[in-house]
């Protein structure tokens, strides 16, 4: 009897979690989508964002989000992959046991701390050594690149570890060196997992808000270099929602809906890719 009650209770809790997700989704779309139809898709994806004049074009923010995300991947993929390969193939058990939890701990640091480190160290460094305001695509890319490391490292590591040992033996038995084995065999064999890790990392980078607000500069224009300021979609929502009303508020929800669709798509792709392997 007690078991039955516990089961029902857990079922209820599980479904209310899914239920709240559905409600959030519904709410975002219900608030945002009508505006897109009101101003038209063309205007929504135009350059001009000027809420006081009723212009709600999000193109410059999309480009901003895209630039910091690509920048984050440029930083995160080589470091993340190198780290995963070292951990999985070259390091001793001891090193693996210490290093992997530490890297996963990176995921647990609040993003405001990353932003703070960016403001205190990275932004002045870029301003002094490369010029520009310092609050820039470059600063955001580096910080976001570090923030997505745990995702890329742990998923790539897991998929490298999952490559059967018989493949490694087969490769060594043909006279391949360890490095050749990694490059020519293990990375192709673990490719789906590695790609999934990168896509999930990408989703994290697009969705990150706090750290980016603090170091990207938030200038509402299309950046011309890595040293220019940018404003991302997420920053715009966080910065403006506090005072937005009417159509402006609806436009921010429309941004949210757009982000939502992108991130869900990335996650579905990642799940598809990993699923196909098994």
């Amino acid at each position: 009897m007690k078991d039955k009650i516990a089961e029902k209770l857990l079922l209820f809790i599980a479904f209310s979690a899914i239920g709240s997700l559905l409600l959030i989704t519904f709410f975002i779309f219900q608030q945002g989508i009508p505006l897109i139809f009101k101003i038209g898709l063309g205007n929504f994806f135009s350059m001009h964002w000027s809420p006081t004049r009723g212009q709600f074009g999000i193109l410059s923010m999309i480009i901003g989000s895209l630039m910091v995300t690509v920048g984050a991947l440029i930083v995160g993929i080589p470091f993340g992959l190198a780290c995963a390969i070292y951990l999985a193939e070259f390091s001793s058990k001891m090193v693996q046991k210490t290093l992997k939890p530490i890297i996963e701990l990176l995921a647990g640091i609040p993003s405001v701390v990353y932003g703070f480190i960016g403001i205190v160290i990275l932004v002045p460094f870029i301003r002094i050594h490369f010029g520009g305001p310092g609050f820039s695509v470059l600063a955001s890319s580096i910080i976001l690149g570090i923030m997505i490391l745990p995702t890329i490292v742990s998923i790539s590591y897991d998929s490298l570890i999952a490559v059967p040992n018989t493949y490694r033996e087969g490769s060594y038995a043909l006279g391949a060196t360890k490095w050749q084995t990694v490059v020519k065999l293990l990375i192709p064999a673990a490719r789906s997992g590695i790609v999934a890790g990168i896509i999930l990392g990408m989703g994290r980078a697009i969705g990150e808000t706090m750290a980016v607000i603090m170091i990207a500069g938030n200038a509402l224009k299309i950046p011309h270099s890595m040293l220019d300021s940018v404003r991302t979609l997420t920053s715009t929502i966080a910065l403006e929602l506090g005072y937005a009303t009417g159509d402006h508020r609806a436009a921010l929800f429309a941004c949210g809906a757009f982000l939502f669709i992108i991130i869900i798509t990335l996650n579905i792709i990642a799940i598809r890719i990993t699923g196909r392997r098994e």
Partner: protein
Amino acid sequence: MIVKTANLNLYYGSFHALKDIDLSIKENLITGIIGPSGCGKSTLLRVFNRMNDLIRGVRVTGAVLIDREDIHSPICDLILLRKTVGMVFQRPNAFPLSIFDNIAYGPRVWGITDKKTLRDIVERSLAAVDLFDVLKGRLKESALSLSAEKQQRLCIARLLAVEPEILLMDEPCSALDPIATGKIEELMLELKRKYTIIIVTHNMQQAARIADEVGFMLLGELIEFDSAKKIFTNPSDKRTFDYISGRFG
């Protein structure tokens, strides 16, 4: 290419896995190594291409000479040794790449990039294991889509592509059905004209069918080494007789 061992001992940590092995393997013959599970026959095979190096805590003493060179000496080129002494594993370990890339893997590792040369090598290697006619239109397909027998053939072809001289086979048919086994055995008899083959098997009938010389191992010792005919009809050691007549193992 002659393989010789003298006073070969191997330890996994404190476990004495191979004890004073002295044997000499002749060119262009199939040498079978038989014995019950855990007798050290696979370990012995893995000495010849130094596959045991991959296992932590392995210590080898004594001499292993391949073509009169000590393979454990510091001047021995391990990579070259593994090219000369190829290995076929118990379970077919075709890589998750295309059929073409599987066979081209070794040559590419050895620095061959020319497309035409690679294609020639792939075709020749597949032909050597009688797979070319079956697979010639399907070289881009994944090797993992093949049957177990074809995968094992592919693994042998992959090996031949790097032009080895000695083939080590570690129970190459244990994952195959009897018909596939028969085909792989036929292939081995064909290959022995060009290669020296050492095969580990716990299938005595298989050793009797294909091996020219046979070594019987028990608990890390090489009990008897002689022509297959002698071992299977009139062994000198009582333990060999007991094993081949099925009293244990």
